[in-house]
């Protein structure tokens, strides 16, 4: 009985959705409304107006920076929500979780120690070069967060936690949102609108500086948040 109901729901959802996507403008045509309406301006003027050769970065940090502002708030919300539901004390976080105390292979820790600096350099490249090539603050931050997780798994949680000192941890977790609000308010005060950048004819390096400040903020915030979420979920009460 339940199976029939499930199949009925799926069919009822499939038929209109498939019919609707079949009638969408044909996949991949350059003449589709999506590819002709707003895009020419982004592609032609983006690097010049918004300041980054990677037009995706132009869109996420400048044209639609407010969305990204919302995005970093979403992930901050997820962190606070995880902390509030799981409620872990710092001491529990530092303890090695039970069932996890098997001796680790020296080869694993050697390999991790050996590749960690390279991963770290790669993340810095992603963050700082994101406005010119694929990548950006969030990608770099996520990979750095994954690196911290890797280090705490192989070298113990104490080591991982020492990378984010407890005193500064709340600030690091809030870094992304704070960077956005700071740049936004600066733009408000100096350029007339929240998250507005100085225009091209004005100081070019200021604009690039703001982009990089945002990238670094997102990177630091993302890394701190992912690492903390991991520690919180991993700790036993």
């Amino acid at each position: 009985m339940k199976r029939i109901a499930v199949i009925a729901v799926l069919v009822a959802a499939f038929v209109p959705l498939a019919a609707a996507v079949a009638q969408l403008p044909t996949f991949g045509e350059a003449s589709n409304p999506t590819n002709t309406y707003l895009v020419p301006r982004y592609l032609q003027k983006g690097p010049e107006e918004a300041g980054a050769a990677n037009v995706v970065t132009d869109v996420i940090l400048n044209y639609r920076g407010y969305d990204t502002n919302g995005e970093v708030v979403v992930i901050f919300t997820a962190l606070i929500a995880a902390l509030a539901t799981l409620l872990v004390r710092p001491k529990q976080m530092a303890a090695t979780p039970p069932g996890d105390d098997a001796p680790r292979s020296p080869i694993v820790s050697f390999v991790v120690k050996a590749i960690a600096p390279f991963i770290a350099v790669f993340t810095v490249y992603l963050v700082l070069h994101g406005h010119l090539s694929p990548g950006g603050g969030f990608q770099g931050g996520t990979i750095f967060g994954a690196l911290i997780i890797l280090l705490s798994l192989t070298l113990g949680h104490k080591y991982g936690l020492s990378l984010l000192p407890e005193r500064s941890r709340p600030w690091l977790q809030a870094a992304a949102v704070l960077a956005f609000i700071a740049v936004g308010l600066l733009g408000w005060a100096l350029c007339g609108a929240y998250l507005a950048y100085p225009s091209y004819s004005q100081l070019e390096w200021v604009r690039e500086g703001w982009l990089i400040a945002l990238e670094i903020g997102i990177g630091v915030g993302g890394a701190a948040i992912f690492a903390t979420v991991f520690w919180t979920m991993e700790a036993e009460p």
Partner: protein
Amino acid sequence: MIRALWANIDYVASVVLFLIGLYAVIAKNNLIKKFMGINIMETAVFALIISVGTVRHGSPPIMGAGARAPFINPLPQALILTGIVVAVSTTALALSLIIRIYRQCGTIEADELRRLE
């Protein structure tokens, strides 16, 4: 109709993935499995939105030396970057809740939880 479906086979694949995810959410009993289903639905929607902005034989929207037209629409990509972060945030919260539920009730099967309620 069939021809239109075939021309838009990428969109149709997204719809199929969306429904596979929906099936897991409705029919699966395990909460972790349900959430894997929601994650599949999310990626399906993202794939649809990315496909909408694709140009056949286009190149990524990164300007600089050697870049050549036609370029691919950067706007959906920017939206999906945001979308992916939203998805992982939802997952993190859901999994924290699942861990709590397991600690309090000792099970994460939906029907057993309903019986405990």
